[in-house]
């Protein structure tokens, strides 16, 4: 039997860790890290226990549930809900959090801000577990926002750091027209803002989705419509009761799903809201490893999977297409990035796109299981990749440009090996976890394409193209760092593997990249469907994936290891494409022009002038006419205009009271006579 306190304890343990570490003096970072890691380890243990109780039976468990707010006929509650997907996710979150904390103790051992890391990190883990364990959409949303907060805090961890600008090397590179280098990135303070606001763009859609579900819930008379069970009840038959924004029935359900997906697009950095994630790499690499690789960005995938019963075919088609586009787009950009974390960031975006491709395929095609499965395997190997990247950056004294690396294999063998297996996993080499999970994704997309036909093939093809590129750029990444000759001795000569406990973290994570850790139990646990068609699709997908891997990987080995000239020639041959990738397909710039400078700063400034004008208020007080048209026509100018008009009337009236007695008497007589006439005539 599952103890009632268990799920709550798992949820609250990171919060306790956050509070505890907040109380630890900032001068004792090691203590704080140890404390947090200890609590996280306990939390992981509990999660494992819970998983063992839930996963084998495939049961869903509703934990304690409390009302949080009674809005009068509408109740919002908090509580836990665990199914196999959630249980495994909780284990992964806990495990990675523990390991990352241990690793970070080394990574930040000489950072004076290190004491802040544990509590911010623990707060983030709490938020993430809130999303994972929530038993209703509202609580998910709360966790969702708090995840955003954690991400905000950790991206801006080094809040005082300027954007990289003053390094001679970067200036030189920039002068040479290089793209995709660190210099393109924002300062941490800017990046955290960008991340939060772009997440909020998605959240606005999320709120509207919640609105649709709430309206439907009220229409169907359910007191607490947002719990998973009640949502399923309300959305029975693929349609929602009631109307909202002029929609009803299945259209309304589609709207709700798209709203939720909109949130996921923001959080999971999908096209067109993906641009914040590469900038988020300004955070500590340890934070990136879990937040911007393994868990937070996966929250969008998780949420869509959690709300899967609601998703209508129309909504799923959108999910698949967005996933496919993102997969290819991000992969293409990753190919030309020189910042080693940026490559990983774009690869994360691309892989998340892959997960959405799977989800878009629909449950019947095995999409849900495939998407979640890839989420899990990706979480571990991507975390490992980031920790390895952290080791490299640390080893290279903070440098992270691929131009200046190379040959580090000899100086840091453990890191190189661990990174190597992780790369093999991400490109989907046989017997590695990625092989298995990516195969499932492609199989689901393929099957969906086969059954639905027509446009439904789109996501599959995009995903294939993305996979092809993934093999290329990830190998390039590894080769550029670890293989070949040392390009910049000044940067590389101090390099060494991390301290033993940090290396141990890498070594602990490495086995999870192996396929047999996951397969075949995970597919069963996630309820992947089995049939002739599925098996057939799996085989086809495996063939396709292997072919793509060979082509992409082969090219990478040739071009980046064997002969650099091939890469240069390819770049020349594909110059327009290469440039487009280097310019991030113009999306960042478009967003910058359209939203940051246009709708944001620009229009806001215009609105501000429209509202108050620009003129000197003291002058207007004395009745002076506004000097500019914009002042007279601003809202405030119009209001002041009323006052000015009154004063003007007063002045013209005062002109009649100008001290001429004769005029006074004459006026009195004339007006009096007029009144007399009027009175007599009327």
């Amino acid at each position: 039997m599952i103890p009632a306190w268990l799920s709550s304890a798992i949820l609250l343990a990171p919060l306790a860790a956050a509070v505890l570490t907040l109380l630890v003096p900032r001068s004792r970072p090691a203590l704080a890290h140890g404390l947090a890691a200890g609590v996280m380890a306990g939390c992981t243990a509990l999660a494992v226990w819970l998983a063992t109780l839930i996963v084998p039976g495939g049961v869903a468990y509703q934990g304690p549930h409390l009302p949080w707010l009674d809005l009068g006929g509408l109740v919002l509650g908090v509580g836990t809900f665990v199914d196999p997907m959630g249980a495994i996710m909780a284990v992964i979150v806990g495990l990675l959090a523990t390991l990352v904390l241990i690793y970070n103790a080394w990574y930040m051992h000489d950072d004076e801000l290190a004491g802040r890391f544990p509590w911010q990190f623990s707060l983030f883990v709490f938020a993430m577990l809130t999303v994972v364990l929530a038993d209703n959409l509202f609580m998910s949303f709360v966790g969702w926002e708090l995840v955003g907060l954690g991400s905000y805090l950790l991206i801006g961890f080094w809040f005082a750091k300027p954007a990289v600008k003053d390094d001679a090397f970067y200036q030189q590179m920039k002068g040479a027209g290089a793209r995709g280098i660190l210099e393109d990135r924002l300062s941490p303070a800017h990046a955290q803002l960008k991340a939060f606001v772009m997440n909020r763009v998605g959240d606005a859609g999320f709120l509207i989705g919640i609105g649709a579900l709430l309206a439907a819930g009220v229409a169907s008379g359910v007191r607490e419509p947002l719990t998973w069970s009640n949502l399923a009840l309300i959305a029975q038959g693929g349609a929602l009761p009631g109307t909202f924004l002029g929609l009803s029935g299945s259209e309304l359900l589609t709207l709700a799903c798209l709203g939720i997906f909109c949130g996921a697009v923001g959080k999971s950095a999908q096209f067109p809201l993906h641009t914040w994630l590469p900038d988020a790499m300004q955070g500590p690499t340890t934070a990136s490893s879990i937040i911007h690789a393994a868990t937070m960005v996966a929250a969008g995938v998780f949420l869509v999977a959690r709300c899967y019963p609601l998703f209508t075919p129309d909504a799923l088609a959108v999910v698949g297409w967005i996933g496919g586009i993102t997969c290819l787009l991000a992969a293409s950009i990753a190919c030309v990035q020189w910042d080693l974390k940026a490559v990983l960031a774009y690869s994360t975006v691309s892989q998340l796109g892959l997960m959405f491709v799977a989800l878009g395929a629909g449950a019947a095609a095995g999409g849900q299981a495939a998407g979640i499965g890839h989420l899990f395997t990706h979480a571990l190997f991507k975390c490992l990749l980031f920790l390895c990247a952290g080791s490299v950056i640390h080893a290279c004294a903070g440098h992270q440009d691929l131009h200046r690396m190379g040959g580090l294999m000899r100086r840091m063998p453990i890191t190189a090996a661990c990174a190597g297996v992780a790369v093999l996993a991400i490109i989907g080499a046989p017997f590695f976890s990625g092989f298995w999970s990516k195969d499932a994704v492609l199989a689901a997309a393929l099957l969906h394409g086969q059954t639905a036909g027509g446009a439904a093939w789109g996501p599959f093809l995009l995903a294939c193209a993305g996979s092809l590129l993934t093999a290329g750029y990830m190998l390039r990444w590894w080769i550029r760092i670890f293989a070949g000759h040392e390009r910049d001795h000044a940067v590389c000569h101090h390099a060494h593997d991390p301290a033993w406990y940090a290396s141990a973290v890498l070594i602990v994570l490495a086995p999870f990249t192996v396929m047999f850790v996951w397969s075949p139990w995970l597919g069963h646990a996630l309820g992947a469907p089995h049939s002739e068609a599925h098996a057939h699709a799996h085989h086809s997908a495996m063939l396709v994936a292997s072919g793509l891997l060979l082509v992409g990987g082969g090219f990478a080995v040739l071009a980046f290891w064997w002969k650099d000239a091939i890469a240069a020639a390819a770049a020349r041959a594909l110059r327009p494409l290469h440039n487009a990738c280097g310019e991030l397909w113009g999306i960042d710039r478009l967003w910058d022009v359209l939203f940051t400078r246009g709708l944001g700063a620009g229009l806001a400034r215009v609105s501000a002038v429209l509202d108050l004008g620009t003129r000197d208020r003291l002058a207007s007080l004395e009745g002076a006419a506004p000097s500019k048209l914009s002042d007279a026509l601003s809202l405030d100018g119009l209001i002041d205009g009323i006052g000015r008009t009154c004063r003007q009337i007063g002045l013209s009236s005062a002109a009649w009271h100008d001290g001429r007695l004769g005029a006074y008497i004459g006026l009195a007589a004339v007006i009096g006579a007029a009144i007399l006439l009027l009175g007599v005539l009327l």
Partner: protein
Amino acid sequence: MIGALTWSVVAPLACGALCLLPGRAARWFALFGALVPLAVGLAALGDFARHPGADFRLVESYPWAASVGAGWTVGVDGIGAAMLALSGLVAAIATISAWNETRNPRVYHALVMLLLAAMNGVFVTLDLLVFYVCWEVMLVPMLALIGVWGGEQRRYAALKFFVYTLAGSVLMLAMLIMLWNRTPAGGRTVAVQAIEIQAHSHDGGATLHGLPVERFSDGSVSVTVPRGFDLRHLQLQWRTWEGERVLGMSLAAFGFLAVLLAALVKVPAVPLHTWLPHAHVQAPTAISVLLAGILLKLGVYALYRLAWPLFPAQALHWGWLIGVIGVIGILWGAWVALGQRDLKRLVAYSSVSHMGFCLLGLAGLTAAGATGGMVQAVTHGLGSSLLFLLVGVIYDRAHHRNVDGFGGLATPMPRYAWILLIAALAGAGLPGLAGFVGEAMALFGSFTAGGPFPWLGALAALSVILSAAYMLWTVKRVAYGPLAHPEHAAYTDLDARELAATVPLVVLIIVVGVWPAPLVDALRPACENLVAHVRSALP
């Protein structure tokens, strides 16, 4: 012996008089004068949280003018209690933040106390005439506080505030006189709804608001309402006013528009908001705190206490318009805030945006929305007060408020940066902080209200983007990044007085954000009752 609510008005007045005594004790008197209403309000709020109900409690009534029917009648429901507590709290914090006021501190504190007494009068009174009197009395101390202790263009801002808000509320005077005039001298017998008796009769239906209830054999129930200004009595006659004509419209429509105008100016709602940035920018910190923390709430409170109960059919009829005004305010305020460089002006526009949620919530006429609107009023009082205090902190050090003139203050002032971040996140509506509760409830209320409200709610939801943008952009420009000016490195972090002013607000923001149930439970019955009352006007 006078009761607690009367004390909440008398104590500030008395303390205000004591403030004028020579010596340096004025600030202590002022603090005490603020703590009395805080204590009364908290006690009442606690009572409503423990025993939720829509009735008026702590009711006291003293005759004033029998020939007119006006009296000193006070009582609070959940909303009134919350507002009273908020007003005491904000006034106490404003007093602490002005603890070291050197320019004529005695008069300063005395004026603040007069202001507080007037505001409390509005919150506790159940008499329309007294309501109006207190409503207008506020203008005078505010005029002086902005005009004397304010910034460079204080005279312009003060006069503008005075004339603008006075002009906004004069029609309300006409309204209250009309209502009085149209009640026959001998009183009027009106039918009463069952819910009214359920909610407000304390003696099993024998009397209602102190009036004997007459029951007829056909089951109908009525009371005879005397001529006067008791809001509870006026409210019973709303049907009569639908039938009276004035200037081509019904008396109810006229009255509703009159209250609406007065309230919208105070709220302030776009496009009647432009006095606010001037007043805020020119006012000293503590007065900005009072202005944002309490004064703006009066507009919402007037809608809640006057417009909706007295003219329910009009509220139904014009609800969409209020909602539209609210949403315009939400979006326009946020957008303009994004374009501001003066920190105080920025916070002022954020107030315009946030107060829009109060209007949206009230307009939708759902229990969730109305409660959300009032909760938003309370939480905005906490959040915007904190923001103004924080602007004041750096103004005290840098003597300017230009956001571009800061940067990287988190390095010399870490505590400041954290509190600023919390305040900004509360303003951005982050769950777990107070700002989220009201906004979410108002939004959810709109989503479920039907008619045009889902559309309005969807538009309002877009403000989560803008609010995050202007709030966090501000934090970024002030606190983060490399230190913009080397001389800022010498800035000291928050001192004890500044912590004493800000930390209570931070704690409350977090407590209300995490555990809003007591507050919401205290406010909800009154709002539900209001919604039921208004909905009873449906044909």
